[in-house]
């Protein structure tokens, strides 16, 4: 029996189990929740890869002025629609602006809009959905009706309205995305709560006389977090793409400001699509990579928060 074990080549699983065993021995009795969470997240390769890509894209956008050698806004008339070169890494677009610089600077706006609106709407949706879903009654009824009003309102009209009143701006976009987006997460959080509410541990907590906010946010929310995380990552992607669409219509961010959406819109022209691949391919790839990395992170977070999965 020992022979079989000795001759078997050690796999990655063996190493993982050894690590787990060591950790448990080291932390016996004082196993911390956060440490466990971190180690489980770090053991998930895809999540780590996603996190690295995410961090690289974010940092590059953040430090765009240090990395890019060209101004993303100023045209260079002597280099119009030039393919990639040592001077312009991703080439130049039809007005002679450096695509690499535009992708970097564009990330700032797009990430802010995408991730910002997704997180904001998740926070609002979760705060309302978790509490009203647990408490029920008239509060739940009112919250439900309000979310229905927001969700049935055509987004584009809302955008037109706000742009007409306040003018084009980044903040408007985030506000609109949040207003129209919180309903989805609210409903999901509420639905999860409705099913968790019937679990006996919730009844037990009630029998101890714990307050509804404490039961809902502290004890029930962790069990609803998985689908919420996934939803945040999905809506991040959706918001980035929506920003692109609205910007194209001239309702989002002004076209002069580089965003991933604005850059991508140049590819609406068939000639660009056929002849100048460097204008749309890098930014398209960046969007895909970013969305993918956010999805990986979301998966990793969900697995890490699920206690029945060992890291």
């Amino acid at each position: 029996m020992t022979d079989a074990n000795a001759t078997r080549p050690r796999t990655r699983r063996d190493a993982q189990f050894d690590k787990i065993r060591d950790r448990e021995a080291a932390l016996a009795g004082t196993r911390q929740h956060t440490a466990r969470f971190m180690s489980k997240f770090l053991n998930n390769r895809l999540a780590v890869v996603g996190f690295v890509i995410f961090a690289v894209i974010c940092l590059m956008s953040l430090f765009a002025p240090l990395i890019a050698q060209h101004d993303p806004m100023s045209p260079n008339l002597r280099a119009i629609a030039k393919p990639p070169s040592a001077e312009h890494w991703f080439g130049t677009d039809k007005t002679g602006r450096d695509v690499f610089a535009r992708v970097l600077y564009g990330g700032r706006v797009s990430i802010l809009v995408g991730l910002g609106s997704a997180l904001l709407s998740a926070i609002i949706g979760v705060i309302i959905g978790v509490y009203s879903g647990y408490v029920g009654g008239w509060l739940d009824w009112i919250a439900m009706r309000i979310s229905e009003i927001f969700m049935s309102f055509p987004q584009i009209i809302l955008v037109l309205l706000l742009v007409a009143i306040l003018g084009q701006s980044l903040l408007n976009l985030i506000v609109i995305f949040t207003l129209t987006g919180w309903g989805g997460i609210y409903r999901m959080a509420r639905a999860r709560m409705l099913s968790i509410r019937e679990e006996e541990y919730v009844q037990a907590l009630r029998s101890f006389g714990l307050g509804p906010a404490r039961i809902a946010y502290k004890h029930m929310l962790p069990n609803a977090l998985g689908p919420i995380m996934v939803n945040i990552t999905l809506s991040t992607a959706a918001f980035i793409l929506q920003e692109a669409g609205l910007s194209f219509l001239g309702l989002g961010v002004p076209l002069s400001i580089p965003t991933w959406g604005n850059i991508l819109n140049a590819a609406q022209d068939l000639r660009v699509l056929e002849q100048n691949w460097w204008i749309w391919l890098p930014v398209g790839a960046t969007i895909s990579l970013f969305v993918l990395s956010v999805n990986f992170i979301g998966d990793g977070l969900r697995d890490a928060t699920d206690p029945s999965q060992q890291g």
Partner: protein
Amino acid sequence: MQPNDPILKLRDVQVHFPVKTGVFKRVTGHVRAVDGVDLDVRRGEVLGLVGESGCGKTTLGKAILQLVRATQGTVTYSGEDGETELTSLDDAGLFRFRKRLQIVFQDPHSSLNPAFTIFGSLEDPLRHYGVKTREERRKIVGDLLEAVNMRRESMDRYPHEFSGGQRQRIGIARALSIEPELIVCDEAVSALDVSIQAQVLQLLMELKREKNLTYVFITHDLSVTEYLCDRIAVMYLGKIVELCDAEDLYANTLHPYSQALLSAIPVADLDKKSRRIVLQGDVPSPVNPPSGCPFHPRCRYVVDRCKTEVPELRRFKSAKGEHMAACHLIDQPLAEQPLRTESP
């Protein structure tokens, strides 16, 4: 306080759930889950609450703990500081009494929060009741786990790492954590297999002796009540139909429904043939309970009076204290044949 004084008095407790239908959610009727229950729970006793599924046992248990509010009637708790009507208190007022009443649930798989360690689940109520430091809470939780025959270290594990029986014991530990006087065991052993059942029952009885507890033991398993209970209340369709000393119930069954129920206990003796009383039909809907005696559509002794007149719980003479039953016919010779006859 005498040991036999009632710790809990239920008077005409009703729990009705509205039935809403249609687009406008009009209330078209009520599910009479508990329909007028009078019951005293005596300090230090084990009161069995038996009946088939859907007869309102669990709802009554929850109504005792005020997890479901009674739509009518009163639940009165009497302790050292006199009597308190729990049904008239709001959540803030109930706070003091939550500590005295606890519940152990049926399903060991949903009774513990899967996202928390055992310590995480058990510490919050303790904190709520004023155990300030983490070290103290860890000590208390550890002691509790040892009290239910589990290892102290288990507190840092997650619920999915335990078997059903272990989880049920953790559920008992949780109920004990704030040192209650009365524990409602809602089908506490029904989901466990028989050997584990015996273990958990043993544990419950030991804890009762040590900590001077009172149990309300809700179950559909009559062989468990026989082993465990001092008194037994038989419920049918939201009403108590028979209430008496446990031995008395098995020796001298009065109500026809109880007779049918008892005859369904399997007997592990081939020479002893029990006469099964098989009830016809289903339990009537609690939305539309039958007129008169709720049991009359299925009763084999039914007479006209049963169909119109609701029988009250009446007292009957018995060797062991009082024997209550709700049946019009008991004064008449009802059980011509004894229940478990030995066949020749």
